[in-house]
C-alpha cells in the first residue's frame, strides 16, 4: 500500500503533539529574538544571546583565555577571539575592562574592512564605547601611563578620545598634572590625546606583526 504524504493523513495524537511542539518552537524563537528589543525599549541594553549567556556563567575561563592573548605588538584579531571579547565586554565588569584595555594591541585587518577608522578597527575601543562609559577612563590612563610602547599609548589615546570630550581630557591631564611631567613618553601621550588627526599603527595580516 502506498504511503500518503503527511498533509493527507488524518491527524493522530502524535501529529497533534508535533504541531503543538512546532508552535511552541516558533514562539520560543520569536521570544528569543524579541527579548533584546524589549529590553532596549524599557531602558536596558540589548546583548546578543551569546553575551547574555556569558553574563550569567562566570566569565573566568573566557577572561583567562583573553588575558593569555594580550599581545606585545599590534596583531590582527581572529574571529573567535573577537567573539570572546564581545561576550566578555557585555558583562561590563571591571576585571574585563582591564583585560580589554590590555588587549588594545589587537586590531581587525584593515584590508578586509571598508572603514579606515581606528576606533572601529580596534575591537577594544569599539567594545569600550559600546558597553562601558567614561567611568572606565581612569583605568585606561593608568594602563597607558604604565605602558612603555608608543603604539599602545596611541591606541589608549584613541580609546580615551572616543569616550570623553576634549574638555574632560584636559581636566584629566590637569588632575594628573601630565603637562608638567618631565617624561617625554608622557608628554607624547598628552600630545596624542589632544591630536585630532593622529595616525595609529595597525597590523594588517595575521603573519605581519609590527
Amino acid at each position, binding site marked *: 500500500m502506498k504511503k500518503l504524504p503527511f498533509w493527507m493523513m488524518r491527524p493522530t495524537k502524535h501529529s497533534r*503533539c*508535533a504541531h*503543538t*511542539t512546532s508552535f*511552541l*518552537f516558533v*514562539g*520560543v524563537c520569536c*521570544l*528569543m529574538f524579541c*527579548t*533584546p528589543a*524589549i*529590553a532596549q525599549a*524599557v*531602558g*536596558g*541594553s*540589548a*546583548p546578543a*544571546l551569546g553575551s*547574555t*549567556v556569558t*553574563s*550569567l556563567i562566570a566569565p573566568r575561563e573566557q577572561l583567562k583565555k583573553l588575558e593569555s592573548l594580550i599581545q606585545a605588538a599590534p596583531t590582527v584579531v581572529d574571529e573567535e577571539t573577537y567573539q570572546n571579547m564581545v561576550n566578555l565586554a557585555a*558583562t*561590563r*565588569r*571591571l*576585571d574585563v*575592562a*582591564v583585560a580589554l584595555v590590555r588587549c588594545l594591541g589587537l586590531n581587525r585587518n584593515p584590508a578586509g574592512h571598508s572603514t579606515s577608522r581606528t576606533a572601529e578597527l580596534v575591537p577594544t575601543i569599539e567594545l569600550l564605547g559600546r558597553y*562601558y*562609559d567614561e*567611568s*572606565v*577612563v*581612569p*583605568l585606561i*590612563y*593608568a594602563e597607558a*601611563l*604604565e605602558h612603555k610602547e608608543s603604539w599602545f599609548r596611541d591606541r589608549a589615546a584613541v580609546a580615551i578620545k572616543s569616550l570623553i570630550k576634549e574638555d574632560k581630557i584636559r581636566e*584629566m591631564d*590637569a*588632575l*594628573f*598634572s*601630565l603637562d*608638567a*611631567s*618631565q617624561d617625554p613618553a*608622557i608628554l607624547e601621550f598628552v600630545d596624542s590625546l589632544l591630536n585630532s588627526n593622529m595616525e595609529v599603527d595597525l597590523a594588517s595580516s595575521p603573519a605581519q606583526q609590527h
Partner: protein
Amino acid sequence: MKIFVSSIVFILLSVFPCTVVSQEISDNQKIKQLENLVPAEPTVIDGSTKVLMQEVAKTQRVDAALILVRCLGFNDDPEWGHPRSAQELIPAIQLLKLHYGKTVAPIIYVEALRSDHPWFRDRAALAVRSMLSQSEIHKMDQLFSLDSNKSANAQAFISSLSSNAPDVELATYSSKTLKEVGRHLEEIHNKKKQ
C-alpha cells in the same frame, strides 16, 4: 515523551535570556538608585542602603565601582556594636576590597583628586591603603605624577596616603541629631531676627 522533554527544553531556553536581560535591567536600576543616595557629607548608613550597596558591588561592573567609591561617605555608627577600625566601619571600602580588588585603585585616585572635601580624600586614602601595599601606592603616585602635582587636592591626598593613621571623620547618630538640633535652633534664631 520525547516531544514533552524537547518542549520543556525550548521553554527553558526561551526563559533563560529573558532572565539574564531582566537581571541586567535590574542591575542598571540598582546602580541608578544608589547613585541618587550618594552622600554629600559623612552619613550613618541604614540597613536598606547597605543591602543595596552589596547588591551593586556584586555586579562587579565599572559604573558600579564608581558609584561605590562616591559612597565612601557612608559609615556604620562607631558608637554601636563592638569597636571596629575606621576601615571596617566604611562599607564601601569593604565591598570594593571584596568584589573588585586593587584594579579599582585608579578610579579611587581620580575621584579623590577631583574632590574638594578633605573627609572624602581621607576615606579614599584609607581605601587605597587597605588595598595596595606601600610600594604599590608609591608606584601609583609616580604613575599619576602626584609628587610633582602642585594642586592643593593632590598634596592633601598624598599626605593622607602617606599618613599611617589619618583621622577619618566618622558620622554618628548622636552627631547627626546634634546637627539637626543646631539647624533647628538656627532656623528659630533667623525667624526671630526677621
